[in-house]
């Protein structure tokens, strides 16, 4: 089956489009298990393309195919007009990739590791030193940059791996979950750095679960499920279906048990419910009624807090892949749940 959901952002001229990374592939895993089936996506220079999907959706397989660690059974991966499947070594020269697993750099400091990789990627020493310093400053990791890596935290290791990838960026930069383990303040700095990378001319393919934050920097989003493309569009295009819809979120009062039904007003469509929180969607014109209802619930102690917000890409994503696979919903306050 070939699923063509190929769309492009409209800001680039034809001569530029001829030179962009393009991935069209069909992969059948061994033993009859189908890994990826007909993914068609373009990454233009200057563009951040977000690749979303639940665990096992085929994201990492796709990433490994781009740099020639995994061979697709069919389809084409084109980088700057070059067939990446036939010439994996050229693909590697033009791509820099931050894998999902952290790079072990024991024995080195983050700064040394970043500089060495920059020079291995062909950067001149002086340029690499300057670029390393710029990245270290941009991500606010200077105080750790010269610490032996055995002593740095997981988040710092993740940021170091990011710097190692982009110190001398390829035409295509692939980032697989770059924000994992990174603290909220530096996550913002990291998103800015990713945006700058594209603004400087690289095509960025960003694999992430962090839909809510990625929304700020991506130009184009591709949602994968079961190795197929479910949807692909600009963030605004994907969110169009939710225009005029708001999300209402409740933090439930302590005396509301997990099995107690929430008496939502009729205007609300319930979406998620867990022990301490509940959420639903409501049409904008009914929002005032819902606010009044929620305020009453706060008065009687059934609800601690409530909030209304424009429906996000995350809501679109959850609707598309189904709540079972919702990655960020799983983050909701279920840190320790004991079911007897």
């Amino acid at each position, binding site marked *: 089956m070939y699923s063509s959901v190929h769309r492009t952002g409209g800001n680039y001229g034809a001569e530029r489009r001829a030179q962009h990374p393009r991935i069209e592939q069909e992969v059948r895993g061994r033993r009859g298990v189908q890994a990826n089936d007909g993914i068609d996506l373009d990454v233009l220079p200057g563009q951040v393309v977000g690749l979303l999907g639940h665990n096992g959706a085929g994201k990492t397989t796709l990433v*490994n195919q781009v*740099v*020639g*660690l*995994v*061979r697709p059974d069919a389809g084409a991966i084109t980088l700057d007009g070059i067939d990446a499947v036939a010439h*994996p*070594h050229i693909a*590697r*020269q*033009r*791509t820099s*990739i931050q*894998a999902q*697993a*952290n*790079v*072990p*750099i*024991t*024995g*080195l400091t983050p700064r*040394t590791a970043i500089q*060495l*990789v920059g*020079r*291995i*990627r*062909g950067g001149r020493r002086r340029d690499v030193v300057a670029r390393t310093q710029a990245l270290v400053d941009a991500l606010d990791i200077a105080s750790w940059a010269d610490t032996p890596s055995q002593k740095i935290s997981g988040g710092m290791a993740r940021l170091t791996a990011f710097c190692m990838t982009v110190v001398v960026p*390829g035409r295509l930069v692939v980032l697989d979950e770059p924000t994992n383990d990174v603290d909220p303040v530096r996550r913002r700095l990291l998103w800015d750095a990713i945006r700058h990378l594209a603004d400087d001319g690289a095509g960025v393919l960003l694999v992430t679960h962090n839909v809510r934050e990625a929304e700020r920097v991506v130009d184009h989003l591709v949602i994968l499920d079961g190795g197929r493309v479910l949807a692909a569009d600009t963030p605004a295009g994907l969110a169009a279906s939710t225009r005029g819809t708001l999300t209402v979120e409740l933090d439930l009062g302590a005396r509301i048990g997990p099995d107690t039904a929430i008496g939502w007003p009729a205007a609300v469509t319930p979406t998620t419910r867990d022990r301490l929180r509940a959420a639903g969607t409501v049409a904008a014109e009914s929002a005032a009624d819902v606010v009044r209802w929620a305020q009453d619930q706060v008065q009687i102690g059934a609800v601690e807090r409530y909030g209304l917000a424009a429906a996000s890409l995350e809501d679109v994503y959850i609707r598309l892949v189904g709540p079972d696979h919702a990655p960020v919903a799983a983050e909701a306050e279920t840190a320790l749940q004991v079911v007897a």
Partner: protein
Amino acid sequence: MNTARQGLLLLQWQLRRSLPYIPLLVVVQVALAVATVVGYGLLVGTPSPDVALYLATGAPTITLITVGLVMTPQMLAQAKTEGSLDWMRTLPVPRWTFLASDLLMWTLIALPGMVLGVVAGVLRFNVNLSIAPWVVLAALLVSLTSASVGYAMASVLPPMLAQLLTQVLIFVVLLFSPVSYPASRMPEWLQTAHQFLPIEPMAQLVRAGLANASFTVPGRSMVVLGVWVCVSVAAALTALRRRA
């Protein structure tokens, strides 16, 4: 891009990453060299001058082979397990450059142990060596062969299996190889097997380099060594290039 420069930078990366462990590696090599010389000395009692010369010129080969056949595959298996190898495979470095820099590192790391093996042998058995200048090249070739075989083993096999195999190999090298004693003491089938394995030619080459007056290298041994280097390098390169 200059691939030689890339290879040297990769070598620097690997060496600096191994730096904390290198003193330990050298200590293990010293222990190995001394253990071989002193341990065999205990086994055979007071050796005759001939036997002593065999033991003293065998010990350096044992340390060379152990680094290549045991430590190299163990480190590579570890690099596979911790994900370091997969990451390095995403770098824009030709596979053969990567292999060459790794083999160079393991070839060099084995050399201090070899020198210590010679020193330990001379001190313990009081033998007179007649060192040929080409022993340096011989040591490099032997070290390269064993590093290639070890590297190929760990590239081709799953990490667990490679680690297990190294444990078996250490016994084969220490006890069942004509390194510290002449092949004529072994059962015939084992002698035949060793005609095709790289261990005996490695021992012969180092021995002839260290005691040039007493030993020579058969031409056939050089051919066997050459074949093992080529096959191992090809196998390791194929494994590095393989796509899942």
